[in-house]
């Protein structure tokens, strides 16, 4: 939720999407790479090429998190997009189980892991 709050703030202050990769260290602690943006309101890249340098040696990538601007999207950015769902499937094939989190313009957080979930799940609560 802390990561989603940081992303939500960055999205709202810039009008661009921001995102990061999530990883798990060998001791089980979960970490997040620094937030990044492509200065685009409709997408943000967090592939290994862009975020791999920030994943510590020995850690394993476990997913990603990003925020929607609501700009130029049919549902005002409230739900996971076709790109989010497609990415989840691609990442499942590339990295094994991966969880994608998305924070929407209303501060709600969606979670999707295609290995476990039939469809995206809305987490309880809301970022203020």
């Amino acid at each position: 939720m802390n990561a989603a709050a940081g992303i939500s703030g960055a999205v709202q202050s810039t009008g661009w999407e921001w995102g990061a990769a999530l990883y798990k260290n060998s001791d089980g602690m979960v970490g997040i790479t620094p937030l990044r943006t492509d200065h685009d309101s409709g997408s943000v890249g967090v592939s290994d090429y862009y975020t791999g340098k920030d994943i510590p040696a020995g850690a394993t990538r476990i997913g990603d998190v990003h925020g929607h601007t609501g700009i130029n999207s049919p549902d005002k950015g409230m739900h996971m997009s076709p790109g989010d769902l497609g990415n989840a499937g691609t990442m499942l094939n590339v990295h094994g189980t991966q969880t994608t989190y998305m924070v929407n313009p209303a501060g709600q957080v969606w979670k999707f892991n295609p290995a476990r979930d039939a469809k995206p799940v809305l987490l309880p609560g809301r970022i203020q």
Partner: protein
Amino acid sequence: MPNKAHGKLGGISTLLVCVAFCCIASCKRASDDPLTRWEAIPEEPTQNAILLQQAERSRCIWSVVQDASTHRITIQQAAHEPSKEHQVRMQTETGVLVGTDNGEYGGGLILTDDKRGLTKRLLDTNVLQLLPWKSGVLVFTGLLHLGVDEGAVWLYSKGSDGNWSIKKVADLNGKPSVISSANGNVLAVGGHGVSRLDQALNLTEVTLPFAQVFPNSITEDVHGRIYVGMHAFVVRLVPAKTGYTHEWFTKPGCLR
């Protein structure tokens, strides 16, 4: 004697004219080089180098521009990140091509012809740019979203049977952020480096560590040298026996 003196003066005059001509010629050469007063980086930064991290946060955003009539290249400082187009259109003899790029929400390429009431979907992927080509239209597609990073170039053209169709020319190394044409060639640049399509549609890709520097403009001069504008740097690619050599330039105060 006067003749001799005159001859001597004439020789000096000729020499002075020659010196002046050489000065003007070399000054012109220098002024034709848009990077004359720039600082060259002695060693090309590698991916994730400190210099690139500094560039990522730099307030200097350099944009390379080529004058359409003189072909002279100038470098300008952009006030902010260039905004992105979500729709591109081009008139063709079969109708209007409309390409859309809605990022993670998708995009496509549609052919519309109001006269015939025709709408035909040609591609179901994000369309970034349409460029006129001698045998049709080049269509650049791509998406960089979360773990997906892909790009491609297609040709919409008329076949020998007179029918128009679209075919993939090549996959690109990731999504290009900028595409432009210069000298009859097509250039694209993104986080993975530069792609160049020559007039026979042969693809040359130059891998460069551009992930952190957000390239925003690209052009090529009459000598085939490619200039790329980005955060903190201007990178020049100079044709070599095989491929290109790479030169990185910046200005004082851009890297902190």
